[in-house]
């Protein structure tokens, strides 16, 4: 009762503040638009990095549709060789910002890998990854998968079907090798999640002992390969499967070298994927630039999802340009336009395979950051127990809804966007309600990270140390 009235009071105070602010600025400058109060960007020439994946789309769209220029930002967009080069670029200032794996700013902040303060005001997308296995593995796996009436396999395909295959490799003394894109990538955690849910141990990390290979006790050995090289590496027989973003799963189908078995949408419905990372010093030194680039990216994300994905074909055309993703139109379109092709010819509708704006996809939720932290702890990248408060503190250091909120409010004030398109900022805590849609039916509650970690049968639990 008391809390409720307090909240109401707070809301009222804020409203009056906003109104008086508007009146004040309006009377002083003669303009009432928020953009004028926002101020011009301090740094106008920017360079952003990306990896050739379809989920870099908001950056490409913000450039091509002139959203960056609308903010007075002159942005150069540059493809990077791999995630390490990209992260180093943002740390040493060669890049002003980049399309990043959600785990990268978090790992950098806690000092796993290179220690640096990287923040994110903008979450780039939900879902968008898949796990692909080679044709040979698929043939052996297929017999263990239940079939539907029309003979197609029942989805989602669980790693239970892969387990006998992995065991047969181990019995023959051959290690079962798979690829993922980076030690702290979503793909690493998704692949591990899927494998472990099917009873296959993906191995532990032990950074305190100098072991960063992540193969302790492993039944499946995971190693790093840059996304665009995944299909070629699998074709060469170096790995038997991989987890990567698009278009590199569809590329395997087109090339006829492998079969995507499961999308990350099926592993964890609406999982957070890439983020836009900038260094903390950049955000402090150039606050207006930071808000303005966030505004441009929010508008681009909205454009991508607008009118029920009506703009997607145009987006695919832009992405297929050689300076962006550069793969063929058909390959990119396969996943960007609401469908996903598994086995050749088995094209199924996955309307939310790539979500850029719906479901508040762009809002940086603390609970998303904490999920990554729980997985880092689960697989030993965080070698010691941490209190629940520590998880929250780290999440608040890296994920910056405050910047997002400023950008969103100014977009609303400029009438470029509607208040309904954003979370209700007055009540938003940054924690999603406990999420249920995981492939192993384990419920995730971001407010209780330690309790969550203890729920898994494979993985480190409270008190465990390698």
């Amino acid at each position, binding site marked *: 009762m008391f809390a409720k009235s307090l909240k109401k009071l707070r809301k009222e105070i804020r409203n009056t503040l906003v109104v008086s602010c508007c009146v004040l600025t309006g009377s002083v400058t003669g303009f009432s638009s928020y953009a004028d109060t926002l101020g011009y960007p301090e740094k106008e020439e920017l360079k952003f990095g990306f990896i050739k994946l379809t989920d870099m789309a908001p950056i490409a769209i913000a450039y091509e549709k002139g959203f960056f220029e609308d903010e007075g930002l002159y942005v150069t967009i540059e493809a990077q060789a791999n995630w390490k080069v990209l992260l180093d670029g943002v740390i040493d200032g060669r890049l002003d910002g980049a399309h990043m794996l959600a785990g990268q700013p978090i790992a950098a902040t806690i000092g796993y890998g290179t220690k640096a303060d990287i923040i994110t005001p903008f979450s780039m997308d939900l879902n968008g990854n898949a796990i692909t296995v080679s044709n040979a593995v698929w043939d052996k796996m297929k017999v263990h998968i239940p079939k539907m009436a029309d003979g197609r396999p029942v989805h989602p395909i669980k790693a239970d079907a892969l387990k006998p295959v992995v065991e047969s490799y181990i019995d023959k003394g051959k290690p079962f090798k798979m690829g993922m894109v980076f030690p702290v990538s979503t793909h690493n955690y998704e692949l591990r999640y899927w494998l472990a849910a099917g009873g296959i141990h993906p191995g532990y990390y032990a950074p305190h002992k100098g072991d960063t290979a992540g193969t302790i006790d492993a039944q499946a050995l995971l190693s790093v390969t840059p996304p*665009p090289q995944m*299909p070629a590496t699998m074709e060469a027989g170096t790995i038997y499967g991989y987890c990567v973003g698009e278009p590199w799963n569809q590329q395997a189908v087109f090339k006829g070298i492998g079969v995507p078995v499961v999308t990350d949408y099926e592993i964890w419905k609406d999982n957070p994927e890439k983020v836009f990372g900038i260094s903390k010093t950049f955000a402090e030194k150039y606050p207006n630039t930071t808000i303005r680039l966030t505004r441009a990216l929010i508008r681009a994300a909205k454009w991508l999802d607008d009118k029920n994905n009506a703009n997607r074909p145009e987006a695919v055309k832009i992405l297929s340009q*050689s300076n962006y993703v550069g793969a*063929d139109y058909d390959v990119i379109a396969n996943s960007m336009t609401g469908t996903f092709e598994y086995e050749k010819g088995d094209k199924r509708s996955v309307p939310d395979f790539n979500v850029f704006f719906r479901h508040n996809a762009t809002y940086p939720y603390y609970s998303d950051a904490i999920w990554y932290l729980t997985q880092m702890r689960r697989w030993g990248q965080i070698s010691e127990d941490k209190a629940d408060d520590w998880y929250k503190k780290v999440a608040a250091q890296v994920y910056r809804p405050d910047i997002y909120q400023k950008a969103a409010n100014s977009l609303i004030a400029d009438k470029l966007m509607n208040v309904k398109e954003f979370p209700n900022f007055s009540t938003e805590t940054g924690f999603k309600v406990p999420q249920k849609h995981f492939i192993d039916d384990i419920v995730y509650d971001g407010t209780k990270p330690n309790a969550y970690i203890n729920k898994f049968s494979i993985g480190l639990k409270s008190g465990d140390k390698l």
Partner: protein
Amino acid sequence: MSTLTTQVIDESILTKLKLRFSSMHNQAKPILLPMIGVAIFLFLWTLASSSINTSLGKFPSPAAVATQVHNLYTEHNQERDKAAAFYQRQEERNAKRVAQDPSYEPKIRAYTGKETFVDQIVTSLITVMSGFILAAALAIPLGIAIGLSKDLNAAINPIIQIFKPVSPLAWLPLVTMVVSAVYVSDDPFFAKSFVNSLITVTLCCIWPMVINTSVGVASINKDWDNVSQVLRLPKSKHIQKIVLPAAIPSIFTGMRMSLGVAWMVLIAAEMLAQNPGLGKFVWDEFQNGSSESLSRIMTAVIVIGFIGFMLDRMMQKIQYVASWDKSSASL
């Protein structure tokens, strides 16, 4: 009698005709034979390309390459149009801002769009020439010093022999790290990527020039040396009037070799370090893995070869003009 004369006349005409034909044949030879060679090569290429299947489709045929040349040129023009529109928008935006905020000093920022194939060729050429000129500026004085002094030669020779065969790929990580550690500036005049490529090129193409220059200097005709001694020429005059002119043919031979090396090294360095240029173009296309990638790469291969050939021809022409010994400037 009359039959004999006609026969003689006939024979003389015949020999004349034969002579003319053979001279025509000789004139046509330098054009005709290469054309036949190229035609056979194109035929074999077409034949081979239709039977090689990769996971990215068929190996590019000459026709596919021709299409890509056209595409790349069209893309270049489109990008130029976009650039023009970009500058126009920028001016309008600047004007608007000046109207609102008179203290603002408008400035024009460079186009932020992608580098086209043509831009990348230009970037590569600038990089290779800068690296090469830097190498020449270091190598020729060093080569002369080594050539003049047997002791210095003995001292430095092992170092040259060891560094000469080092691949650019081995140098590159070191160069990259050193450059990013040493070359620190808020507003660098040269981009770091440019400096990386330049130094790598210099490190790899310096050696043939050093060696050739020193050999040229060391093997100067003894008579000329004696002349210099008789005239008691001071050291600087000796180098200027005797050594340099005498060593020019071998210096240029070294420079030609070096430029060839420089061009090869540059492509590899750009590819590995993701420095802008033709090498990066090839690598980006490989990463894209689109159905057009292979034909674009093949186009780049041919362009790289052609530019390498033109560079060599250019050096040969300079060598021919600058050298007294015209025989050294052969193909």
